[in-house]
């Protein structure tokens, strides 16, 4: 069994199913699912009042909680805009910011996430020259088992993914720094070292798990799984601060570990 087998074992898709579904979906009225739920309700004074109340509450909530756009301007988070539900790089300085679906997952701004975490959230005030913020969709910290938020910077001129610097954050169900399969830092001991900054102890991991190809069966040794690591896949830094787990990860081989630590030092 290998990658190729797992792709080949997929059952074929029936042509008539594909065609029938396409026709069925196209025949669905456009308003279905939008107004369908409301059509069966009677128009009464009570229902009309409730509808108005809901609209008023929604409008007030939107006005009060509308998130802002923030972006890194070389050395810090300096720009804010009100008026959009999700947070992306501002169009004025980066028109190639990737689109993120409005739903799901629902995203909130840096500030809203910070408020949800009682002001404990920290972000870098410095990233190396040439890096641009390309994605800062933050998931609300509601899913305990997942890394909650995701911010990506990309080195100018790099291929998609190759020059990325990614910040993951997690506020619930925080795993230990080492030796836990959820924590990512499942690296062999000789692959990581402790580093210190701002009274924080962090784990600097050299290389990454090499997922580019599946290893042979022999990597199971004495019934124990042995992870294959690659040195040429960049560094990552993992630490805890004020009850939040931070994982700064890069596949950019041009980014030095000292720079990664300097970014972490700049978190405010």
């Amino acid at each position, binding site marked *: 069994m290998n990658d190729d087998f797992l792709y080949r074992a997929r*059952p074929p898709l029936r042509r008539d199913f594909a065609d029938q579904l396409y026709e069925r979906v196209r025949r669905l009225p456009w308003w279905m699912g939008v107004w369908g739920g409301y059509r069966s309700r009677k128009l009464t004074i009570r229902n009309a009042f409730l509808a108005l109340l809901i609209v008023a509450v929604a409008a007030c909530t939107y006005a009060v909680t509308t998130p802002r756009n923030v972006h890194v301007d070389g050395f810090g988070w300096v720009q804010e805009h009100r008026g959009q539900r999700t947070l992306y790089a501002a169009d004025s300085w980066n028109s190639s910011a990737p689109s993120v679906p409005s739903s799901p997952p629902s995203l909130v701004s840096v500030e809203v996430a910070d408020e949800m975490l009682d002001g404990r959230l920290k972000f870098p005030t410095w990233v190396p020259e040439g890096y641009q913020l390309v994605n800062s969709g933050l998931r609300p910290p509601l899913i305990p088992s997942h890394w909650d938020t995701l911010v990506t910077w990309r080195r100018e001129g790099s291929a998609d993914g190759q020059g990325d610097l990614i910040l993951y954050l997690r506020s619930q169900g925080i795993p230990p720094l080492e030796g836990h399969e959820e924590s990512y830092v499942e690296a062999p001991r000789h692959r990581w070292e402790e580093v210190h900054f701002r009274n924080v102890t962090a784990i600097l991991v050299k290389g990454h798990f090499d997922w580019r190809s599946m290893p042979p069966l022999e990597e199971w040794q004495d019934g124990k799984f042995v992870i294959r690591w690659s040195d040429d896949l960049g560094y990552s830094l993992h630490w805890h601060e004020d009850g939040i787990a931070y994982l700064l990860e890069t596949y950019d081989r041009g980014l030095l570990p000292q720079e990664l630590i300097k970014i972490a030092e700049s978190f405010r």
Partner: protein
Amino acid sequence: MEEHQWEELYRTLLPRVFHYFSYRVGSIPQAEDLTATTFEKAWRSRWRFRGDEDGFARWVFGIARHVAADYFRKDGHVTLALEKARLVDEHPSPEEYAQTKDDFERLTILLQKLSVRERELIALKYGAGMTNRAIAEVTGLSESNVGTILHRSVNRLRLLWKEKE
């Protein structure tokens, strides 16, 4: 979204979504039902989507994951249902068809031995043909974590497959 865009995306994504469900639930009829539900939901709420083609794929798979979660929650399907589904396709030869059917059924039994999360990642990777980066974006796991879990899961499947032989 224009209709011609929808048609193109539908043709591209339909097999991927169907294969995702077939690996998740292990049943062809159920996979077809869930695929239909997903695309109906996507069509009804397509006005909510804004973005490019990649974004649309992530959005559709977000819907698909919710549909799968509903399926397992509402119907109490905690294990995969292996059904002797009749596979129909115009292209494969009878031999190829028989081999694929046999492989899929064996694989479905082995997938039951994985955790829900491992199965989901296998379905996204090998069913839907997504990259580790795309899976990380859809699931909220880190890219490295996705790679590690997939690596471990495939090795486990490989061992189980060997034991069966």
